[in-house]
């Protein structure tokens, strides 16, 4: 039971308190790029969550049973990069097979998940924080959920913003950055609530 409670706190802590986008400023590129419509933003979030969970799963295994077992921790970056790149390829194939419409909507941002720093950051944090197998998966999943939450929230705001009279010089990216900043401030309110 204590274990379950700990995992729940880990989950909430990663989603809210240490939100990858709004607190740790990771994955800003898709956060600004694919957040025009709630639907595509949500699908992008799902794809990223899937990649993150799978990455956490594989990264833990690779790190524990190959890198640490053979004293090859210095190869972390290289190993994680090829794991992430292959997973993104896989996700791309799956999405293209299941939903060509979604594949088109995500466009260039789908292969760009490869270079999404949120995923690399998450992968590097697992050995750093010393999570065990279950914790790693929960952490990866929570990181994805946090990313989805942030991107869907800002997409909702941006959809509403289309009907508003934004000053010309602030239209587009500038106003989005301002909103992102204010959201970041709001999320700072969670700081210190959960310390895992």
């Amino acid at each position, binding site marked *: 039971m204590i274990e379950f409670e700990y995992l729940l706190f880990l989950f909430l802590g990663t989603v809210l308190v240490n939100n990858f986008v709004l607190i740790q400023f990771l994955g800003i590129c898709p956060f600004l790029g694919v957040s025009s419509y709630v639907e595509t933003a949500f699908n992008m979030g799902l794809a990223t969550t899937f990649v993150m969970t799978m990455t956490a799963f594989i990264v833990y295994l690779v790190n524990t049973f190959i890198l640490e077992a053979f004293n090859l921790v210095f*190869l972390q970056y290289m190993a994680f990069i090829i*794991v992430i790149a292959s997973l993104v390829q896989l996700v791309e194939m799956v999405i293209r097979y299941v939903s060509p419409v979604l594949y088109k909507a995500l466009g260039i941002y789908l292969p760009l998940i490869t270079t999404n720093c949120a995923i690399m950051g998450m992968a590097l944090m697992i050995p750093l924080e010393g999570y065990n197998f279950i914790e790693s998966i929960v952490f990866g999943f929570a990181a994805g959920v946090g990313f989805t939450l942030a991107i869907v929230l800002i997409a909702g705001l941006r959809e509403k913003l289309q009907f508003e009279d934004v000053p010309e010089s602030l239209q587009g990216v500038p106003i989005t950055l301002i909103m992102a900043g204010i959201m970041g401030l709001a999320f700072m309110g969670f700081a210190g609530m959960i310390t895992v």
Partner: protein
Amino acid sequence: MDSIFIYSVASMGLIAAILAVGLGIASRRLEVETDPRVDEVTDVLPGANCGACGYAGCDGFAEAVVEGKTPVSGCPVGGEDVSEAIADILDLEAGSTEEEVARLLCQGGDKETVSIAHYEGVKSCNAASNISILEKECSYGCIGFGDCEAVCPFDAIEMNENGLPVVDEDACTACNNCVEECPHDLFVLAPLSGKNHIRCFSHDEGKFVRGACDVGCIACRQCVKVCPVDAIEMEDNLAVLDYDTCINCGLCAEKCPMNTIDFYGERVIEIEITEECIGCTRCARECPVDAISGEAKEQHEIDQDICVKCGLCYEVCPAEGAIVKETEDKSQT
């Protein structure tokens, strides 16, 4: 030391091999049936993903072409070669596209224009254009900080010593970036075959232009009068050339008192009708100055005193060799 080396190579190789096999299997299982023609079309496209066609990248254009939503000639960068290649793939007739390049509508550089102020702000045309008074007295001309040079993705624009951008015809792909960037709208996309350009965009009155610039259009209307095909029109104190109508005869450039019109095509020096003439009378009908006379089905003749040597008769003549001309290449001078 050695063991670490071996372990590194072996472990990374192992991980990569497992992932590669996994991806290989997945790509077989999850293969999507795509129209093979789309891939073929994508292969012949330039692949610059510049978006000049209006679609998101070359893939988007390829799909639209295959679905018939856009003509095969929709790629302005690839020009005729690409549209023919696409047409081959789709078994269609290539609608011939005239290749276009960006042309500058100003030749008032630092030497030709009168300077009335000194600008010390950010070296950017778009920034400088927000100020009501510019360095040059002419408020329509080139500002000269080279925003076009900076925005050109193909390095086709270079600022010369005179402070004017020079377009490299071979490198320019008519992507429209400079046309959109220039705050004074001094760039137009014009056919590559056009050898005659009215390089001025000033709508000021002739008197003012004469004082402000050595090579500006003073709206004297001489070019409008001399043009044999009515390709030039006066619009608000400015002569504007219609590239579709222009036959590149160079008459207007010769007449222009300000040298605003830049001609570097082939100027006709001598032109006459030979015995090959079939007497179709087309040249006589087309001649703007009625210099050609002759009965139907008989050899026609050009009255050299009246002829302005525009070369229009040569263009319309259906019989090969019936009209011969001697030309002078003006591109060198």
